[in-house]
């Protein structure tokens, strides 16, 4: 009201005009013509209109409230129906995705198992409880080696990695699991080749060869040599010379196991790093393979990287599929095999 009370003089003029207006039209009876009575008539009209306007606003508000409540009821009902339909649509989409996946997966997994059986036979892929050395195939091609399995729906596909004639292997992750994988790879490689075709060199400065102690019987036959602390440089020089020489070699493959820790990796001189990189680049073609833990090999297509975490692993060959690692081979099984291999090789050499 305060704003309407702005100028009293103007208000008086306004009153007079209104009185003239209303009085001339409908409010002022011919009998009542005085100024005061005209003012009463105008105020009467304004109060009546004010009360009527307030009721009109209330009626409009009630009407709007009715419409809003009806809309709310409709939207509530529609929401429940909509939610059920959305759940149905989601479930249908999921079912369709899984149906397509299972159809494709069954076919692909079957093919993968068949290919795995051809790529890794006998000792290269048999579980440890049934494991026994096997003769290589007639062509003498080295195949892939099993490190674990891949569970794919209801099918279990062997997880294989390349080594002989194909790759270097670099392993990272939890140390005990990594050592188990290395022992398994070496046993499968030795068990699927003829005695003497593969020689091992082990650099294990921390445990003095203890990590792979089960393979020690091979040392007597000259199929295994341990390199002590400080022997890294000469060993790498010899490997580079072996890789670059064109003369005949007594063994077909030379597998060099480097078991270092990050501190040991930091101790590599630049010359040693250069030699190691050279072996990475040229070794596979010459039958020289590195199996490395605790060292970073230079990026190269022939480097197979296996990353281990909680008995599971990922590697380049199996892509993004998680591999459930096999446990390491039993030590007595390894030792027994290595003794028999050493005796067999010694016997063949004598003949």
């Amino acid at each position: 009201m305060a704003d309407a009370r702005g100028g009293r003089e103007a208000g008086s003029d306004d009153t007079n005009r209104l009185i003239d207006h209303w009085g001339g039209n409908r409010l002022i009876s011919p009998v009542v013509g005085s100024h005061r009575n005209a003012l009463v008539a105008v105020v009467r009209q304004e109060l009546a209109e004010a009360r009527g306007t307030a009721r009109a606003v209330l009626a409009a508000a009630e009407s709007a409230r009715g419409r809003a409540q009806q809309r709310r009821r409709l939207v509530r009902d529609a929401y429940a129906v909509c939610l059920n339909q959305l759940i149905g649509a989601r479930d249908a989409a999921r079912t369709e995705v899984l149906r397509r996946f299972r159809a494709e997966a069954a076919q692909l997994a079957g093919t993968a198992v068949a290919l795995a059986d051809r790529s890794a036979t006998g000792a290269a892929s048999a579980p440890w409880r049934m494991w026994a050395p096997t003769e290589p195939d007639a062509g003498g091609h080295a195949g892939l080696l099993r490190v674990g399995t891949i569970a794919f729906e209801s099918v279990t596909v062997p997880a294989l990695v390349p080594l002989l004639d194909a790759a270097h292997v670099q392993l990272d992750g939890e140390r005990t699991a990594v050592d188990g994988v290395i022992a398994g790879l070496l046993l499968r490689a030795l068990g699927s080749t003829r005695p003497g075709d593969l020689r091992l060199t082990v650099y294990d400065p921390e445990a003095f060869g203890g990590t792979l102690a089960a393979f020690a019987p091979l040392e007597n036959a000259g199929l295994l040599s341990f390199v002590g602390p400080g022997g890294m440089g000469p060993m790498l020089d010899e490997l580079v010379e072996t890789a670059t020489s064109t003369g005949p070699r007594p063994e077909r493959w030379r597998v060099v196991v480097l078991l270092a820790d990050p501190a040991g990796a930091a101790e590599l001189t630049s010359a040693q790093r250069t030699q190691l990189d050279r072996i990475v680049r040229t070794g596979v073609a010459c039958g020289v393979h590195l199996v490395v833990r605790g060292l970073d090999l230079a990026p190269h297509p022939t480097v197979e990287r296996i990353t281990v975490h909680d008995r599971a692993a990922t590697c380049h060959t199996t892509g993004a599929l998680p591999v459930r690692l096999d446990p390491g081979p039993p030590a007595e099984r390894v030792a027994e095999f290595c003794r028999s291999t050493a005796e067999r090789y010694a016997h063949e050499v004598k003949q």
Partner: protein
Amino acid sequence: MTTRDHDYQLMMNALADVTRRRDAGLDSAEQDYRDNAARAAGELVRAEGEAAEADRWAAAAAAQVLDVDREAARLWDQLRRARGVRIRALGELPEPAPVEAVPRVALQRRPSAAEGGTTPVRESARTLLARAAERIDDTVRPAVRRPLPRWALPLLPVLGALVAGATGLLAVGLVTFGDGDVPGGALIRGLGWIAFVVAPSAGVPVVAVLAHRRLQARLDIGGIGLTLLGGMIAATILSLTFTIIHP
């Protein structure tokens, strides 16, 4: 790596790819569900909000009816006590007038107000009440005028002197004309002498009217005094001059 080994690797990649596509498909289905459910929930929240807003608006409108009625009754009662109003003729509080078109101002908070816009512009109830209150105030309590501004005070003696001088000259003229050989000369001369008497205070009503109309101010006792002072000085000078001319 031999061809069969390479095939094994390709097959592993194909398995990984089909797994990736399965995961993407499941994620997409779940995301679609969440997006659409969120959209539906948003509609529900909006409808709930509009309903709550309409409830509030209706409650405010109901409260306004009570307020308007209370204020109208108060104003009507105030008008009843005004001077010169016949209570019997005034009657009871006016009934609400039928209003077809709701004022636009009152409908601004209505949810659908922005869509329609067909209602003609009318004044709100509060505006009408305010105007009625203003009229009643003017009637019951005439406006209290402010005093004259300070800059106008020096003009008051001058105005008083001018009006008094003009009145004095008129008086001189009447007396002189009445002295002649004209019918009713005595009456004209008498009017001249009366004009002489009122000349000193003749400026007061003139100045009061000017202050009232031009400056919306009242002429207080000080202003009257200043105006009289100027008028008296002018009247004295005029009287002396007249006495010298007609000894």
